[in-house]
């Protein structure tokens, strides 16, 4: 029989239709409102900084990565998220460097998409924060005309930024070092100092809700983080009224952006649901500890990075219980990797 040209593939012969690049691009798309909010508050500087970090990330992925991986969208996503954690006045060369470092050392040396242990955007940011602690804690005020630069964005590569922009302490800095609160409304709307993407809590929550609904992010992680932070800070506030209350803790700083977009990076989060709860609780606790007892006003980035390091152990401790057995999969003893 001269039949059709036959293809043979393995079962299952059908697929659910979602692909990894589609997930990445969907998340990118969901970030557009957040970027718009950043541009609304910080004008052209916001767009410049984000563009620079995306460029850094994409160029690193293109040059150092395997062939054709830029198209999967993950590098662009990393760049965008990195950009959103930076202050508007940051010199562009730093944002570019951060993107490149995040992708190069946070992702590609581990083997590229899927294999990295630490969130590449946060590796990039942690690198920048350790390298340029002054520049990255210089927070321009919101408002102003769209075309006004919010800092020395165009400082020459290698050169220090001229410090002439109007800056303001972030709500967390105000709270921690001066004991001053910020009205909740301002926090929700985003009319406060801070990094590009962290200010508009409401917008981020809406985008996150959309992603959770579409199944692109695991709702357990943000929920677990919010829950832990709320409970812990409410308790502490109850003991010592000088400590910030729960709404402030939830909606100030990078918590919302971190919980919704960065802790949920599935590559660097546990695969099991129980592990995700554990991971989320860990992030929540660390955020509160660092914010209240640590030296830094904000701890979301470090909390996520630290829990990233604990992900293999979270996975190992929460392997599913196999159907028809009383036992979990070999964890501590047998050596569950991941």
């Amino acid at each position: 029989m001269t039949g059709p040209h036959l293809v043979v593939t393995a079962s299952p012969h059908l697929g659910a239709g979602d692909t990894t690049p589609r997930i990445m691009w969907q998340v990118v798309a969901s970030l557009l409102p957040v970027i718009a909010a950043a541009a609304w508050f910080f004008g052209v500087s916001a767009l410049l900084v984000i563009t620079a970090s995306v460029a850094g990330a994409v160029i690193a992925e293109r040059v150092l990565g395997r062939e054709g991986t830029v198209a999967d969208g993950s590098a662009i996503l990393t760049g965008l998220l990195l950009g959103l954690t930076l202050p508007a006045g940051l010199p562009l060369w730093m944002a570019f460097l951060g993107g490149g470092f995040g992708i190069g050392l946070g992702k590609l040396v581990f083997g590229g998409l899927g294999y990295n242990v630490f969130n590449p955007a946060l590796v990039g940011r942690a690198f920048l924060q350790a390298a340029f602690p002054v520049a990255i804690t210089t927070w321009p005020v919101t408002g102003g005309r769209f075309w006004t630069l919010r800092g020395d964005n165009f400082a020459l590569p290698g050169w220090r930024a001229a410090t002439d922009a109007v800056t303001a302490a972030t709500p967390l800095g105000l709270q921690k070092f001066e004991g001053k609160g910020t009205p909740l409304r301002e926090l929700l709307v985003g009319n406060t100092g801070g990094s590009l993407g962290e200010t508009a809590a409401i917008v981020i929550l809406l985008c996150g809700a959309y992603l959770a609904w579409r199944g692109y992010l695991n709702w357990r992680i943000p929920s677990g983080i919010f829950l832990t932070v709320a409970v812990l800070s409410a308790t502490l506030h109850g003991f010592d009224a000088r400590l910030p209350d729960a709404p402030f803790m939830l909606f100030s700083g990078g918590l919302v952006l971190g919980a919704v977009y960065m802790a949920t990076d599935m590559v660097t989060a546990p695969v099991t649901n129980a592990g995700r709860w554990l991971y989320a609780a860990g992030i929540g606790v660390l955020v509160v500890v660092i914010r209240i007892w640590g030296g830094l006003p904000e701890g979301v980035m470090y909390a996520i990075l630290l829990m990233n390091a604990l992900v293999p152990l979270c996975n190992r401790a929460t392997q599913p219980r196999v159907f028809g057995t009383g036992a979990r999969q070999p964890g501590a003893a047998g050596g569950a990797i991941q």
Partner: protein
Amino acid sequence: MGDLAWILISALLVNNFVLTLFLGLCPFFGVTSRVSTAVRLGLANLFVLLLTALCAWFLNRFVLGEAPYLRLIAFIVVIASLVQIVEMAIKKWSPVLFRQLGIYLPLITTNCAILGLAIFQTNRGYGFWQGMAFAVGAGLGLTLALVLMASIRERLDVADVPAVARGTGIVLIIAACLSLAFMGFAGLGSSL
């Protein structure tokens, strides 16, 4: 009490022996391919650190007051001998453990963390309980770093790490990331 707590937390997290003080890198890079081994080595180290703190306190208190110039040599000789005894004991009673830790057990002697602890303890003039807290913090911090590194390396065992990074390169990059992450603990306990 607060003082002891700070000493412990500081050695465990803020000034983690491995990740911020660069002490004990040989086991950190050498014996972290499996979590199970890392845990055991970490605990062995914790044990030796406690012994060391004890010895250092004893020597400082009763022997070296008059002869500070002999500090280093006394520390190293005493610690080396003690570890050798411990090593023999392990070899006798747990041949499996001995085989798994292999050549690294004698190297615990020649491990910066151990001697470093003794020196820090002396320089900072820690008393007995302070020394113990310091040793516990340092030992747990070392174990934590070892276990984290080992669990990450186990995960990377099945990853597609590029050829140039395989081996020590990737381990150093992981260490850099861990060290970056631990910067989050900076200032912890210095409460204003």
